[in-house]
């Protein structure tokens, strides 16, 4: 039994996630997969390790699903993020959205990845030739209306 949100050390399965958002009357499924890149900021990356504050990360993912439901009531969204060591080319995050028409599926998927990067307590530890570094992106604040508006803008919604 796969759930709509997950923080897991297991290999992610985009097909299972896409099935999860299927529904009668849905005509569109959009899927996003984030893949570990072999370079970042000009450096050769050897692998990554993702760390999460798991109970809060799950709640933050649930919050994103609620925000999506408020904005696109006909869409169904699922988000899984992996933790622990990941090799180059492996999927770190998978998001799937199903909806009656394509506009909502695209928007909900894009919005979800933007919000994930803003408010989900997960950290990327980069291992490259000659060292390691914690990547630090956004200061998480789920109530920041400006951040949410920026995610909507990127979702073209």
């Amino acid at each position, binding site marked *: 039994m796969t759930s709509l949100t997950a923080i897991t050390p297991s290999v992610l399965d985009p097909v299972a996630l896409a099935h999860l958002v299927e529904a009668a009357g849905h005509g569109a499924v959009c899927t996003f997969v*984030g893949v570990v890149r072999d370079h970042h900021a000009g450096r050769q990356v050897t692998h990554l390790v*993702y*760390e*999460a*504050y798991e*109970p*809060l*990360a799950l*709640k933050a993912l649930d919050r994103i699903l609620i925000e999506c439901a408020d904005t696109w009531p006909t869409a169904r969204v699922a988000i899984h*993020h992996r933790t622990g060591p990941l090799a180059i080319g492996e999927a*770190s*995050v998978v998001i799937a959205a199903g909806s009656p028409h394509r506009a909502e599926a695209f928007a909900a998927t894009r919005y979800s*990845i933007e919000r*994930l*990067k*803003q*408010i*989900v*307590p*997960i*950290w*990327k*530890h980069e291992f490259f030739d000659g060292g390691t570094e*914690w*990547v*630090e*992106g*956004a*200061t*998480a*604040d*789920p*109530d920041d209306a400006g951040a949410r508006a920026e995610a909507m803008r990127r979702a073209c919604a």
Partner: protein
Amino acid sequence: MRVTVRLFARLRELAGRGDLDCECPGDAATVADVWQQLVARYPALAPYERAVSCAVNAEYARRTSPVADGDEVAFLPPVSGG
């Protein structure tokens, strides 16, 4: 009163540990009070003063949020999932 503090990612590495107990004087305290205690013990965390987010019992909280005896208070450096 005593709370459990949780640190993640670079904060965890700077402090050398991810879990610790923190004594706050008196019965009433806020997240900010816990942070002050923490920085007093681990000055290397001080540069994160403005960048850190906080949570109480695995719910996002503000610096001004109250904390009670036995609470879990987490400090989160800027996130980088995805």
